[in-house]
């Protein structure tokens, strides 16, 4: 089997003539936890829906476990666990009936593990689904997805509505899963601290493109924010390749650059700054910089 569990090739998606995804290329290898980040409406959910075959792509192809998304057979689906946006559950069923339905339809079911999850999450099984809080529905979805012992877990905002304790429980579950052999996780989240804890690679989606796609640990080393002070007013014509952002105020200029190296350092020094200090960037800072409307891309 190809070692890439998820493959997205030149994916483009238009909704009513509006371009939502513009040429996305992405490969997720087996054993990886991939965190897909992006602002609301950036297209993360669209990518996941196309991956799962719920939505057709306008152009390009996507593959899950070496199968094209449009023709996922039940057998392959049985190896994929997913938590979709909006927590698709049949609202007026009782929780116990929903569980039984999912159990009867699945190819493999780890009942012991499922019971453990239900107990950990404290989910009541005798209520109707619509009577559960949003967080509980999220947890139920997660339990249903993990009970099938999936090789690939695709999660769209799995911690939406979860309290702090529940979020930590989710992270530990994800770690527990990935420590088993040959498992892969793709998840979207807005909680960057969670992504920073568990992701191997991150991708940032902005303006329909994947502006960042690299291992997480490299991201902070690659994207640098520098506070440069000039003896007189800051030059207007300072240009560096792969500059994500540039702000000037009087003598001070703050630039955010990707893939900082000696050459860029040399170019900067030709403008004779009086001081140049690095401003530490958290993942949140990097994310905000990269998702500005006019920023450039930094691919791995």
């Amino acid at each position: 089997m190809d070692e890439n569990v998820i493959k997205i090739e030149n994916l483009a998606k238009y909704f009513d003539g509006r371009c939502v995804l513009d040429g996305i290329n992405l490969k997720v290898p087996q054993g990886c936890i991939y965190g897909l980040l992006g602002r609301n409406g950036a297209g993360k959910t669209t990518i996941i829906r196309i991956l799962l075959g719920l939505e057709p792509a306008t152009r390009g192809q996507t593959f899950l476990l070496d199968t094209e998304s449009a023709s996922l057979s039940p057998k392959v689906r049985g190896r994929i666990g997913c938590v979709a946006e909006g927590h698709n559950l049949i609202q007026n069923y009782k929780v116990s009936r929903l569980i039984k339905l999912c159990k009867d339809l699945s190819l493999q079911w780890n009942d012991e593990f499922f019971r453990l999850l239900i107990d950990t999450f404290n989910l009541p099984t005798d209520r109707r689904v619509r009577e559960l809080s949003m967080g509980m529905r999220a947890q139920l979805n997660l339990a249903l997805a993990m009970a099938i012992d999936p090789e690939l877990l695709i999660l769209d905002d799995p911690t939406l509505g979860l309290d702090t304790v529940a979020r930590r429980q989710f992270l530990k579950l994800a770690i527990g899963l990935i420590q088993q052999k040959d498992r892969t996780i793709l998840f979207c989240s807005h909680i960057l601290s969670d992504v920073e804890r568990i992701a191997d690679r991150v991708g940032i989606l902005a303006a329909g493109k994947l502006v960042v796609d690299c291992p997480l640990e490299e991201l902070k080393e690659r994207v640098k924010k520098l506070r440069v002070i000039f003896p007189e007013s800051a030059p207007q014509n300072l240009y560096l390749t792969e500059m994500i952002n540039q702000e000037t105020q009087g003598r001070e200029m703050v630039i955010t650059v990707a893939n900082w190296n000696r050459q860029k350092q040399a170019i900067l020094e030709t403008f004779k700054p009086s001081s140049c200090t690095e401003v530490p960037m958290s993942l949140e800072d990097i994310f905000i910089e990269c998702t500005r409307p006019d920023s450039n891309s930094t691919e791995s």
Partner: protein
Amino acid sequence: MQIRIDNASGRPVYQQIMDQIKRDIALGRLIKNEKLPTVRQLSGQLAINPNTIAKAYRQLEQEGIIVTKAGAGAFVANLDSNLSRAVRKRLISEELERIAVEAFHMQIDARTLLEWFNNAVDKFNLPSKKGQSNG
């Protein structure tokens, strides 16, 4: 072992783990030849990706701060080992240079810097010479 991840920091998570392990060793919370938790254990305990922890351990081993024994796990290195001295020199020199640059930018003179440095040395009970210990 208590490790806290600072999400506002500019340092990658694996470096933060390394920093805190080094700090624990320097403060005596981890002693020579003490066994560190396995990657699996630490990863599960902290809810951090095992690869990140593995990378931290690998780097620490490269720097000679820990040693891994096949089948037994990771242990705090015997800090008197000659093999890692060159590595330690390189690392400390790099850190010192970084501090010197910062001091320059902040316009701190050498004398003040040395005074503050001595304060830090005293705080961590560094022996004046190798082989002695401060009372």
